[in-house]
């Protein structure tokens, strides 16, 4: 048990990632309000991005902008840039899908007059 706590403290970001992922999944599954479900989905997406950026971190390294352009590059002096590129794309696509889902939510509200799943299911029967 002590060993488990120690490994968790050495990787606090991973623990935060697990907590955020599970909170998001739980909210997406159990809340009956559509906006609340989307907030849960947003938490899931950002937690995955947190995991990706954490994987690329190096202790003692600086941001991936080259300081010295004359000499050869030390690979341990800069953090890993590849996760950053992937997450830039992921954040933009995440907000694009969020926009489409919010558009769907307002279309549903205009047709059924409610954001509550139970009300909507009653109206569709």
């Amino acid at each position: 048990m002590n060993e488990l706590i120690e490994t968790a403290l050495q990787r606090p970001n991973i623990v935060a990632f697990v907590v955020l992922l599970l909170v998001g999944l739980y909210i997406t599954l159990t809340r009956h309000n559509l906006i609340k479900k989307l907030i849960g989905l947003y938490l899931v997406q950002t937690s995955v991005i947190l995991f990706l950026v954490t994987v690329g971190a190096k202790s003692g390294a600086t941001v991936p902008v080259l300081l010295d352009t004359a000499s050869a590059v030390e690979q341990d002096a800069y953090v890993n840039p590849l996760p950053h590129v992937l997450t830039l794309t992921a954040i933009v696509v995440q907000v694009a899908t969020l926009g489409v889902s919010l558009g769907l939510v307002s279309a549903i509200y205009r047709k059924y007059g409610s954001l509550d799943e139970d009300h909507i299911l009653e109206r569709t029967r």
Partner: protein
Amino acid sequence: MTLSYELPLLLLLLLTACAAVLVKDLISAVLILGSYSFFLALVWAWLGAPDVAFVEAVVGAGLATVFFLLTLLSTAPKDTHIRRHAPPKAAMLLLPLLAALLLYATSDLPRFGDPQSPASVHVSPHYLKNSLADTRTTNVVTAVLMDYRALDTLIETAVVFTAGIACWLLLRRDVK
């Protein structure tokens, strides 16, 4: 990269996330989600990812909050659900199982900030070493995004365009 302000930041992140899902008033929930995005941007800056921090602050905290608020102002800004359902049994069973599995798998990952972790020794040194000679750009993230992976970025703009068309089709008023 010290532990002195890393743990308070992560705690604030978890606190704002929990507050955003617990608050009844949906507009407050969305605004708390915006502050969560700003704390996330601080975390990116601490992890050495300024580009991701900028995008998170502008697109995540700004644009996403505006989308949420626009939707809420044209619909119902209150979570009117009074009846409390018991959460589904499958969720109560599977989510703790998933948590245990993920935390168990954590011990197999490389230590936080390890320069010799597999992700940092495979192809990323190649980009760090050659991007200046190949692209004449000192920012390696920009070099990879706009040069090596320019086609990905082009298709990403196609995705954003498709999302815009989908929103327009959903939200137009004169549907026959």
